[in-house]
């Protein structure tokens, strides 16, 4: 097709919301078959609303109309350049304008390593909508800034999973979120973590609870660690309480691999509920506790009649 009889130019097709928009429409009479005679009256429409421009003669017999919209507060609109022709309004040029904000800084980035497939799932808060097409990507790199890998969240989601093959295990990785649109880029805080530090463990399973040594107020518990954690140094916590107790008693610093623990000071003939949880014995404050194990109850034996 030939060059059109009108062309519309705008300062920028993407502007900050509320800022000014300038546009100009140039009509080349000799290129507009049918417009040769008579006065060319240029008119503007913002979507379907008439807006006033200022028309003047341009170079080489062209007619030029300039338009300024002081505060453009549509996130998306079409600016139409029109001319009168045979009593009809003819649309002869158009420009699409989008307005919004630079991307908000992604906040509260946190990650969890799923031990079943060793995928690292990270989530974050996207912040206020920028109203503009924004590409959001989770980036991660081994600490010596080798190649940057990561993952891309699905449209409208603010979480994604870095597959095992893109991860460096047992070593610090730098992980952050980067959001980019036409008005700028924003990055979240950078997390420096060893993916293993954020491994999400399944809880241990309390196998047996017995009054051992016999005739004492002591109890011995035995547990199995979650599948897939056999090679890990785990620190665990035990909590127990009798139904009428208001708070749990907490026993910390239990070595996971020990497999058993003994605790004394229990009342006789009383039912107690026990739960246990573990996490990797790593320095990182980010290490996630597993959920508490399913509750196991145990009733201590009656006190033996003394002085028999």
């Amino acid at each position: 097709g030939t060059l059109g009889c009108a062309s519309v130019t705008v300062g920028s097709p993407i502007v900050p919301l509320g800022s000014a928009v300038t546009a100009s429409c140039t009509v080349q009479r000799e290129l507009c078959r049918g417009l040769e005679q008579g006065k060319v009256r240029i008119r503007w429409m913002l979507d379907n609303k008439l807006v006033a421009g200022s028309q003047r003669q341009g170079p080489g017999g062209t007619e030029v109309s300039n338009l300024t919209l002081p505060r453009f507060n549509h996130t998306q609109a079409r600016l139409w350049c029109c001319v009168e022709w045979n009593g009809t309004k003819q649309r002869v040029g158009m420009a699409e304008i989008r307005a919004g904000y630079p991307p908000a800084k992604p906040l509260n980035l946190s990650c969890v390593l799923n031990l079943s497939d060793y995928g690292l799932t990270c989530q974050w808060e996207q912040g206020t909508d920028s109203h503009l097409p924004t590409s959001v990507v989770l980036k991660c790199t081994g600490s010596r800034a080798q190649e940057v890998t990561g993952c891309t969240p699905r449209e409208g989601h603010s979480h994604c999973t870095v597959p095992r093959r893109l991860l460096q295990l047992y070593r610090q990785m730098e992980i952050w979120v980067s959001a980019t649109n036409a008005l700028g880029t924003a990055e979240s805080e950078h997390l420096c973590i060893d993916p293993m530090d954020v491994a999400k463990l399944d809880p241990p399973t309390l196998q047996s609870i017995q009054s051992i040594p016999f005739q004492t107020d002591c109890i011995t518990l035995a547990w199995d660690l979650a599948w897939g954690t056999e090679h890990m140094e785990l620190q665990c916590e035990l909590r127990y309480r009798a139904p009428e107790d208001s708070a749990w008693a907490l026993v910390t610093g239990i070595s996971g691999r020990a497999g058993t623990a003994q605790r004394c000071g229990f009342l006789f003939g009383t039912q107690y509920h026990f739960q246990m949880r573990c996490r990797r014995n790593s320095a990182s404050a980010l290490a996630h506790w597993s959920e508490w194990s399913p509750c196991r109850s145990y009733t201590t034996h009656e006190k033996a009649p003394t002085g028999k």
Partner: protein
Amino acid sequence: TELSGDQDFQLFLQRNLEFTRKIRGDVAALQRVVCDTLQLCKEDELLLVRQHLDIAQAPLEQCHKRTFQAETCFSQIRAGLHIYQGSLATIQALLPGHAGLVETLQLDMANLSSNIQQQMEDLDLATVTYPTENQDPLPTFSSHFHHQVGGFFILANFQRFLETAYRALRHLASL
């Protein structure tokens, strides 16, 4: 013509009258999308710009004449469907969010064309076999605006083409 009594021919006509109505509905749906998303709705607001665009327009005069021949009319319908099949790629590029609607339209057009071809072969009429992949070069537009207006007119012309083809089939069915 001697076809009018033929039972199979009548079944072919009834089926493909409905099919043409469906395709016209598909095209109307795309025209609504162009109006809603591109704000291009009224043909008489775009006459000036149209003069600068070379938009495919398939001839259908063989189906206009009162005493038209089924063979020549059918051939022109198929040729037109082939032309518009190619132009739909222009629409697909304009409306990425509605690729499904465009694909449905292209599948329906291909089926209608092969239905007509098979019916012509059943009637021992000469037929043309079009390559499935369309080799015609895509029209180029000097601006994004012209591309959008081009898309608008392709659909408008195609809708008129379908109305004429529909009237021809209905005329045959009424014989």
